[in-house]
């Protein structure tokens, strides 16, 4: 086993144990009741284990385990319906290193877990990347607002895809959420455990990232987010399938376990088929992400569509299989139901990704 693999296995096994003990249903219910909630204790513990820097290069203060480590950790998070901004950390550092050297202090803080980042990319009223982002940069000051963004409630810095009114084109800016002119509100959302907040900017001071092609960077960032999120979704649906199968073996009606009835067993078989298709798409897309392949857009879209549709299917049916008990607050099924919908909306919804996939269909077959 390579050194990297060993490190990865260690971090994963520690993570699994930690999540089993810390990400409990009681805790999750408490988080869901509180808009903008964040599990700070859990975050502090994973920082101790080195999670924020796991995927980052050593030059950025990370462990150099790459995107596959981030994917594995998100799969663990997804399985327990836990929410931590690992992906956001990686995306932010990725953007920052493309830009000036003076952003290094942000990167270091992020890699060490001393700071939390959020990324505002998608706009309201459309499923895909906005042609003209809502927040506007004028004379170096940012005005306007974001939509509800995951981890914005606790983020120290925000990466914002904005509209540069001078240049008449999109631009990436970074700002500190404590800066003058930045306000945040935490509306009630379908999944309050995501630390969501809306950021409002009023002539806020920010730094423009000197990225050559901000639009291309936005697309790349969305693709990376889609791939990593696919693993979080796979973790979630594995739990749904596992829980539903357990329940189907245990619960009896008409003197039979409900799993002996074909409506249940075939429904579960269909979820399994969806899960494995989604996993296949995600594994291949992860390889394209790690190799920075030009085929990434189509593979990421396939991963996004496969995982999103399959997770929602699994989460919805898991409630159905549990019958009456599945719709109570006490059950855990609604954690996944909420999460599956929230993740389906956070990184561009399926109409956008389907367009991207169909337009780039030929990419899937290059070299196959």
């Amino acid at each position, binding site marked *: 086993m390579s050194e990297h693999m060993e490190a990865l296995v260690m971090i994963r096994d520690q993570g699994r144990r930690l999540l089993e003990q810390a990400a409990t249903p009681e805790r999750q219910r408490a988080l869901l009741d509180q808009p903008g909630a964040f599990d700070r204790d859990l975050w502090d513990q994973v920082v101790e284990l080195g999670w924020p820097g796991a995927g980052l290069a050593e030059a950025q203060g990370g462990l150099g385990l790459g995107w596959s480590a981030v994917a594995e950790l998100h799969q663990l998070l997804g399985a327990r319906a836990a929410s931590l901004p690992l992906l956001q950390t990686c995306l932010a550092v990725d953007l920052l290193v493309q830009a000036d050297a003076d952003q290094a202090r942000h990167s270091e803080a992020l890699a060490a877990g001393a700071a939390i980042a959020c990324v505002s990319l998608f706009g309201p009223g459309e499923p895909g990347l906005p042609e003209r982002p809502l927040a506007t940069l004028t004379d170096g000051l940012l005005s306007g607002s974001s939509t509800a963004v995951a981890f914005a409630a606790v983020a120290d810095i925000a990466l914002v895809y904005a509209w540069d009114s001078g240049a008449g084109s999109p631009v990436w800016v970074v700002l500190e959420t404590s800066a003058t002119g930045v306000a945040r509100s935490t509306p009630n959302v379908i999944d309050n455990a995501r630390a969501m907040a809306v950021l409002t900017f009023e002539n806020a001071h920010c730094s423009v990232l000197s990225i050559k092609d901000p639009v291309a960077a936005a697309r790349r960032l969305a693709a990376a987010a889609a791939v990593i999120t696919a693993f979080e979704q796979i973790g979630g649906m594995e739990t749904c399938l596992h829980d539903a199968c357990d329940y189907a073996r245990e619960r009896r009606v008409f003197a039979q376990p409900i799993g002996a*009835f074909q409506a249940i067993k075939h429904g579960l078989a269909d979820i399994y088929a969806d899960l494995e*298709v989604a996993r296949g798409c995600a594994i291949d897309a992860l390889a394209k992400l790690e190799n920075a392949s030009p085929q990434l857009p189509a593979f990421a879209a*396939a991963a996004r569509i496969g995982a999103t549709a399959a997770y929602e299917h699994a989460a919805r049916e898991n409630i159905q299989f549990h019958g009456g008990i599945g719709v109570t607050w006490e059950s855990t099924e609604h954690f996944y139901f909420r999460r599956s919908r929230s993740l389906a909306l956070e990184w561009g919804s399926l109409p956008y990704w389907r367009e991207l996939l169909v337009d780039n269909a030929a990419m899937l077959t290059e070299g196959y």
Partner: protein
Amino acid sequence: MNPQELNDWLATARNWLQEQAPDYSGKARQGLTMDEDLALGRRWQALKSDAGYACITLPRQYDGGGGTEMQKILFEAEEKTWDLPNTYFGISLGMPVPMLLRYGSEAVKDELLPKAIRGEHIWCQLFSEPAAGSDLAALTLKATRDGDGWRLNGQKLWTSWAQYSDWGIIVTRSDPTVPKHAGLTYFYLDMKSEGVEVRTIRKLAGESEINEVFFNNVYVPDSQRMGEVGGGFKVAIETLMVERYAVSDEACGGISAERFIDIAARARIGSRPALEDGEVRRLLADTLVERQGLRSIHRRAMEAIAAGHEPGPEGAIRKLLIAKRRLLLGAAAMDLMGPDALLYDSSAAQSNDPVNAWIEAPPIRIAGGTDEILRNTIAEKVLRLPQDHRPDKGVPFNQL
């Protein structure tokens, strides 16, 4: 074989196919009757055997290839890119022949295996009956003792290629007084035996490979029994498990996603190209996602086999998904073609022509495990869910 050797071997095989296949595929088959096509197929099979490409995993001493599972899978995938007349031998070489290799005496194997591998003989598999399809153990074809052999009476159904078969493997009911799985016995037999009558069944469309086979007091020597008396069910299951990884093309013989794109790009809905229609794009996106996922599963299975491991259980979803997808894509493409799709030319290639892709799709969702049985298998074997309620369990067959 290391990866480099395997690559070299495949390159050689590919060249060989480039050289030989054109004379046996595509144009060479156009306008042939089924009999003529079969004769061509037999020649192709013999040619492959000479070159070591027939039954690659079976020993060279019987004219097989003496190679590995990986070589077989790679060669078959390559062979599928040519439209070759090998469908007649699919079952014969896939199940009965490997079973004969396990259960036949040396003398019998020496005599029969090369003939089957070279395509001179075809073997059929006589399992299903009118009242025993998914529920194989419900079969009723009777085997009764007669001296040093057995007499068979009854009927088999869905027997592929029986009309051309020289030999067959058969599961019979030898004891109706015990529970149904326990009273079965398995044989191989000469299809030219007295009392065997084969009738071909017309399918809803296309040339038919399926038959019903009647047994009227057919004699089978006990030396042709495979496995124990009463142990037939176990041997039957073993037969169905012989091919641990069957190669099937990703469009399931129907039109590919690319062909669908091609049709949608040319068709119009109102004033727009159909390819711009949301419903068409959604179907296409779902098709591409499913295919991409299955490609990944296939690739990982190949890696597992190459490393000497069992492929994961996820391979079980493949047929369930692609058979249904073939039907959907075929019908959707026909919708886009409008009344042109009414014209049906049964000789058009199913991989190119949506009408044929659609009309011959239903048997695929039924044969080799219906969608319903496949879901049961996934649920019970992979997800460890309980069996359906089974009132027939443990009850003597003649009391059911």
